[in-house]
């Protein structure tokens, strides 16, 4: 399970970094989303992976799973949702203000050719 978990975190991070380095705001937003998925799984695993154990005090149980990473992940998910919403709004605004969806706001060669024709 540990190997599978680390593989998933690694693949998500790699995909996120690749998309983040693209020139269009849409792929950048997708890349950020993939990165937050990766970090959420990473945080979740930082309390060690335990199956079938309760996270709260129970007099009949002696084996627990760590509840803190779950609370951290919950916080991280909420924050990343808000941030994703904000960055999408900003990307739309940039699209409207700058006339294209390039991250640097430049018109690409193809765009200018299209506008000429």
């Amino acid at each position, binding site marked *: 399970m540990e190997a599978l978990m680390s593989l998933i975190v690694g693949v998500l991070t790699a995909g996120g970094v690749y998309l983040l380095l693209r020139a269009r705001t849409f792929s950048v937003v997708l890349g*950020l989303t993939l990165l937050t998925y990766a970090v959420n799984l*990473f945080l979740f695993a930082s309390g060690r992976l335990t199956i079938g154990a309760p996270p709260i005090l129970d007099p009949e149980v002696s084996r627990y799973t760590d509840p*803190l990473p779950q609370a951290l992940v919950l916080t991280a998910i909420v924050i990343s949702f808000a941030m994703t919403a*904000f960055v999408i709004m*900003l990307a739309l605004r940039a699209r409207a203000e700058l006339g294209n969806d390039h991250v640097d706001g430049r018109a690409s060669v193809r765009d200018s050719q299209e506008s000429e024709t």
Partner: protein
Amino acid sequence: MNHLVIAPLLLPLLVGTLLLLSRRTLSLAARRALNLAAILGQILLAIELLILVGDGTVLTYHLGHWPAPWGIVLVADRLAVWMLLVTSLLAFFALLHAMQGTDTCSRHFHPLFQLQLFGLNGAFLTGDLFNLFVFFEILLLASYGLLVHGGGAARVRAGLHFVVINLVGSTLFLFAAGAFYGLTGTLNLADLSLKIAQLPPEDLGPARVAALLLLAVFALKAALAPLHLWLPSAYASTSAPVAALFAIMTKVGAYSLLRVETLLFGEQAGILAGFYAAWLLPLGLLTLALGALGALAATELRRQIAYLVVVSVGLLLAAFGLGSREGIAAGLYYLVHTTFATAAFFLLADLITRERGWAADRLVPGPALPNAGLLGGLFFVTALLVAGMPPLSGFVGKFLVLRAALAEPGWPWMLAVVLVGGLLGIVALARSGSLLFFHIRGAGSGEPTHPPPAKDLPGASLPTIGLLLLCLALLIGSGPVLDLAEATAGQLLDPAGYIQAVLKPVGIQIAPWEAES
């Protein structure tokens, strides 16, 4: 347990919420007064806290009365309160300048301003790594809104870069926090300090990785080279009061670096002792050199000031990187000076831009300024401050850093870089000053030769003059301020008091069944 510790968080949060809800019911003047009163309240709170912690006490506030390693804790020591006071004083003058009309450009300027202060105060007061992340997010979210306040293509483009790079930084922060939790099982900074010192040798590798991830995050916030490239366009394109308030944003990164450097990787940390200091000194000097070159090459005044912010960050972090008591104390003195001086410069650039009409703040020969005497005088004083020339506080700060550097084996390097960087800064500022005030040229065809005369410029320059007077007060009060800075550095280098104050039992039982067993 002192409830005053949480007051600097509650005040901006409540006032910010109130300002958000009262947009339709309260008049603009009432909202301005409310915002200003809240900042005055924060200044008073910071002074009150400074009196309480001045003798070396570390005040703690355990939220919900949960004992420290489990619950969330706020810590007010000398450094945190020092930063609170600088922030609130800066915010006061930035807001005064914003009241000249910037705050009406979009609907939510006032709530965002208070929420920004909420995030800043929280980042300074928290004693928990994950809460530091949360407060970073709060202050960043408010800063995203403030940065694009007023709109315009340049602002939105710079804002997009700023937001994306900071979101990547937040992700790295979470990776670092998760790694620390996985290694030590705690996120409380005081507890982390104890646990890192006891790490088994096989865990030192992952601990180094986590520490370096954290260093990258804070370096990004502080604009330390090579992660400084976002700063110039973000600061140069935003509105002046926001740029002035952002003078404290890089200092949040510097504060976090100093806190982690001394608390987690201080002398008590065993093998990892001095882990951050070894990076901060060379990177700080590199930042200083690159910033000075940028200031020399800038073609707009505001971009030039933004590069001078990069220069000051470099000197500040190099001073912190010395790791000695004198170095940190000199850095803390310089931090106050550079925050006020660069903020005053951004406000002054705004006044100059308004007066210059078509030439705006571009460093080209432009129209004659109607109020050249006042503006030129202010420019001269501010340039002396920022360049670190005697007899003003910039010189004192720089001199103290250089004197502390003499104890370092590589001191010739540090002296050479700082002095050459200072010279480049003077050249750049002298060039801009002569272009702005002496090199007068009529406008091209179709452009008005004279800009419309500004309404009450002397009144508009009062916030700028206020910030400059704060720098003057810093110079006159150098003795007491330096004593406090030395005491703060001493407290940082001996974190036992901090750790004990946070982790001592708060004298209550968590659950009745634990007492019985």
